[in-house]
């Protein structure tokens, strides 16, 4: 198992938002974390990358317990996190953003190679390499954020709401890119509110409701599940 989350509780100060959640991702697998707005999806990803510390439970990565690691140490074990709303460095260039993605030791050694790789993946980023990040469109910034994450040479790429606010054509592009990333053996854990879209891409899915896991399983079983319909349609 690549990522193994066991019974975590997470709270903002005293306000608990994640209750006893367990989740796992295997090598090379694409997993969707689904749930309505405010159900705690981002909080789960943030606990994995360390932006928030868990109260109880355990997070193992490659059988190493990482939940006590500092945030900045977690990318080194192989976890890249593409934050909600992209969060590229607005006043740095595309190239500077990408190079910062390979800041940690292991990735730095392979930096030039990774960069050429990313440029092959996203030819647009190569054309725009000296453009200031915040002058790019939403779709381009999302590509940059994903490219920056890949520069860290992750074994697991976590992406929080990659499709938010993007045009349908851009969404199609991005779906293809996800597929290509997965073909390279990089596992993907992504958050999405559009169930149909997410399950059309992922191997498996987890459904969160108010911070609790209600159902999980293979995508094809979840698509027609009554439980899933209840969570998202409230019937």
């Amino acid at each position, binding site marked *: 198992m690549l990522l193994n989350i066991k019974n975590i509780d997470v709270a903002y100060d005293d306000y608990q938002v994640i209750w006893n959640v367990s989740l796992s991702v295997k090598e090379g697998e694409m997993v969707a974390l689904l749930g309505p707005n405010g159900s705690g999806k981002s909080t789960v990803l943030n606990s994995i*990358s*360390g*932006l928030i510390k868990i109260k109880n439970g355990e997070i193992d990565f490659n059988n190493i317990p990482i939940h006590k690691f500092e945030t900045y140490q977690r*990318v080194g074990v192989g976890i890249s996190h593409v*934050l909600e709303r992209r969060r590229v460095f607005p006043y740095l260039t595309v190239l500077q953003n990408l190079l*910062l993605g390979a800041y940690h030791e292991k990735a730095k050694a392979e930096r030039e190679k990774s960069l050429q790789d990313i440029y092959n993946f996203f030819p647009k980023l190569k054309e725009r390499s000296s453009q200031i990040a915040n002058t790019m469109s939403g779709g381009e910034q999302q590509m940059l954020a994903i490219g920056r994450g890949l520069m*860290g040479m992750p074994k697991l790429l976590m992406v929080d709401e990659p499709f938010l606010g993007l045009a349908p054509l851009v969404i199609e592009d991005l779906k293809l890119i996800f597929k290509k990333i997965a073909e390279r053996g990089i596992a993907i854990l992504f958050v999405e509110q559009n169930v149909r879209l997410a399950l059309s891409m992922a191997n498996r899915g987890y459904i969160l409701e108010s911070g609790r896991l209600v159902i999980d399983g293979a995508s094809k079983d979840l698509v027609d599940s009554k439980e899933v319909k209840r969570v998202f349609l409230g019937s």
Partner: protein
Amino acid sequence: MTSQVIIQAIISGILMGLIYALIAAGLSLIFGLMEIVNFAHGDHLMISMFSTFWFWMLFGIDPIFSIPLTIILMAFLGVFTHYFIIRKILNSTMLIQICATFGLAVTIRALAQFFFTPDFRTIKNPIIQGKLEIYGIFIGYPQLFASFICLFAFILLYLFVTKTETGTALQATSQDRQAAEILGIPSNKMFALGWAIGLSCVAVAGSMLSNYYYVFPDVGVNFSLFAFVAVALGGFGSINGSLIAGVIIGIVESVGGLLIDPSYKLLYVFAVYLLVVILRPQGIFGRY
């Protein structure tokens, strides 16, 4: 009044302005990085001046040679300040943050009065002294030298922040702390580095000022006021902005003093500041 006198005032203003610019750059860097205003910045300048003075007084080291020593001292003080004070208030409310650095300012000044007495000191017979005359315009060598060194330090700072990997990481942290942290950039270390660099800026300015300026516990007060104005004028967090703003303030101070009355120097500078606040509140290069 001859044109010579006006040119003289402009040149003096530019020279002083370059020193304000470096002091302001340090303040601006710290603010840009963690949104904390270092109200003790002027007092850190004062410590740098006393450091230079004591290196000369006790060991006979001339200011031009004690610069590296003062830089090291102030860089350590910056790191120390971050780990023992600033780190603890990073997530506190703004009022607490203001009280912390303001309290630090008062403490430093009181300690300086206690240990060094309120006396005015000067460094006698420094290596760099005398003045240069061109077409009836006089420029003191210490002033000229101080401005060149400050400009040089400013350029180094600029190159470091924009061209090096660590400098880029520093910028990244100031633009998005969390995004930087998940890429493996430890923000706490970046903050400590920011304080080290910020106080190194005043170390350079302070060393050079002590060549020709009185050294006393309250010396930082006016300098920090001008630095605050320069930061606001140039745009909070903008290093380029502080260069332009520092020079503008130097010129306004000097030419205003010449044309109207030197005792109202502060008034002219704040008048310019008010004008900017009204016309362009984010400052010349500001993002905030």
